[in-house]
C-alpha cells in the first residue's frame, strides 16, 4: 500500500514537472520574444549544414530514383547498358537541375533588378519540424542583413515574412500559417481585406463586405498597410466566394500565387 502511494506521488511530481517546465517555456516565449530564442539559434546552427546537404541532394535523388524505377523493366537483359543509361540519366538530371536552378535564379534576379530596394536571394533548406506550423528555413541570416519582419517573395508573389533571424539561417512564416495576416486589396476594385492563413494550402480573405463584387480568379495584392509587405505585390487569386444572406462579410478563399509546397529559392526584401 505505501508503495502505491509513493508511485502515485512520483507520478504527480513527474506530470507537474513536465507541465510547469512547458508552461514556463511558453510564458517566457510569449512575454519576451528574444530572450528564449537561444534554443532556436543553437538547434538551427547545429542542424543547418545537414539540412543544407539533404535539401541540395533532395531533387536529384528523387529524379534519379524515378528514373531508376522506370528503367528497371526495360533493361533487364542488359545490365551494363542499364548502368550506362542510369549514369547518363543521373548526369542529365543533374544538368537539368542546374539549368532549372539557373532559370529560377535569373527570374529572381530580374525581379530583384526591377525591385527598387535591396533584396537578398536565399535558398530554402528546410521545413518546420512539426506538421502544424507552416514555416520554412532559409540559408541566410543576420550576417546577410536579414532581420525579423522582412517580407519574403518569389517572382510569383508573396510567400511570407521572417519571424526569426539567426546568424546564418532564418525562419519564414508562410502566408498559409494560421498566425499570418496580410493586409490586401483587389487589383481591379481596390476593395481591401485581410489575407489570413488557415494552416492549409489555401488562405482566407476576411472583412470583404457582402456588397463588394468579387469573382473567382480575381487577383489580390498587398496593400502596403502593416509595414511589412510593400504595396502591389501579388498574393494570390480568388478560388471560391460565399455570400451569406446573414452577415456583413463574404467568405472568400484564396490560393497563393507562389507554389508554397515547392519553394526552392526566395527573395528577402530588405528595408
Amino acid at each position: 500500500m505505501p508503495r502505491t502511494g509513493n508511485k502515485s506521488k512520483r507520478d504527480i511530481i513527474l506530470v507537474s514537472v513536465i507541465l510547469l517546465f512547458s508552461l514556463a517555456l511558453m510564458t517566457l516565449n510569449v512575454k519576451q520574444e528574444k530572450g528564449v530564442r537561444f534554443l532556436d539559434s543553437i538547434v538551427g546552427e547545429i542542424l543547418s549544414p545537414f539540412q543544407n546537404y539533404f535539401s541540395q541532394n533532395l531533387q536529384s535523388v528523387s529524379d534519379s530514383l524515378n528514373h531508376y524505377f522506370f528503367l528497371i523493366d526495360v533493361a533487364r537483359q542488359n545490365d551494363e547498358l542499364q548502368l550506362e543509361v542510369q549514369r547518363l540519366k543521373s548526369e542529365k538530371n543533374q544538368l537539368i537541375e542546374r539549368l532549372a536552378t539557373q532559370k529560377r535564379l535569373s527570374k529572381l534576379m530580374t525581379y530583384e533588378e526591377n525591385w527598387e530596394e535591396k533584396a537578398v536571394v536565399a535558398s530554402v533548406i528546410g521545413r518546420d519540424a512539426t506538421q502544424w506550423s507552416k514555416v520554412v528555413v532559409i540559408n541566410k541570416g543576420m550576417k546577410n542583413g536579414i532581420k525579423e519582419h522582412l517580407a519574403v517573395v518569389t517572382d510569383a508573389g508573396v510567400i511570407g515574412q521572417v519571424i526569426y533571424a539567426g546568424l546564418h539561417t532564418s525562419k519564414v512564416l508562410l502566408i498559409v500559417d494560421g498566425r499570418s495576416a496580410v493586409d490586401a486589396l483587389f487589383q481591379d476594385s481596390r476593395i481591401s481585406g485581410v489575407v489570413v492563413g488557415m494552416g492549409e494550402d489555401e488562405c482566407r480573405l476576411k472583412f470583404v463586405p457582402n456588397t463588394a463584387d468579387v469573382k473567382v480568379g480575381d487577383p489580390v495584392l498587398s496593400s502596403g498597410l502593416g509595414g511589412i509587405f510593400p504595396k502591389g505585390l501579388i498574393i494570390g487569386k480568388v478560388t471560391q466566394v460565399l455570400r451569406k444572406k446573414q452577415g456583413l462579410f463574404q467568405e472568400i478563399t484564396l490560393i497563393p500565387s507562389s507554389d508554397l509546397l515547392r519553394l526552392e529559392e526566395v527573395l528577402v526584401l530588405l528595408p
Partner: protein
Amino acid sequence: MYYFSQALIAIFLFSAQTTWLKLFSFGGVTPDLILIWVVYCGVRCSRTGGIGAGIFLGLIQDGLSGGVLGMNTLSKGLSAYFFSKLKGKFYVEGVIPIGIFLILASVFDGLVFYFSMGTILKGEVASSFLYQLLPVYSIYNALLGPFLFLVLDKIYRWLELKTSNSYLGMTR
C-alpha cells in the same frame, strides 16, 4: 558510443523530418518521425529515460519549428510519460498495438496544437482540422510507426551488441 549514436539518430531524423519528408506528404500531411521516436522511447526505454527523451526531443523540435517554445515539450513529454505508464499494462508488440498507441499519441499532439493555437497563439485553424487533417496525420503515423519501430529495434539491438562487445574487449 551510446550517446553518440543517439545524437546521430536525432540528426538524421530531424534532418529527414525537415527536408525529405515533404516528398511523402499526403494531402499536405506528413508523418511525425519525432513523435514516433518519442513513443518508441516511452515504450522501450526505462521510465525516466523515456520521459527524459520525450522532453528533450520535444524541446529540440520546438527549436526547429515556428510555433511557441514549450508546445512540443509538453506534448512529447506527456506522451512519453503516458506510454511509459501504459507499457506495463498492455502488450505492445506487433503492428496493431503500436498503431493504436501512435494514433493516441498523434491525436494528443494535434489537440495540444489546436488548443495552443486558440489560446496562446491566437491564430486561425481550419475547420477541417479535427475531422480531416488530424485523422490523416494519426493514420499516417500509425502506418509508418511499426516500420520505424522495427528499424529502431534493429539499431538498438546492434548498438547493444556493439557496446557489449567493446565491454568484453575491455575486460579481457
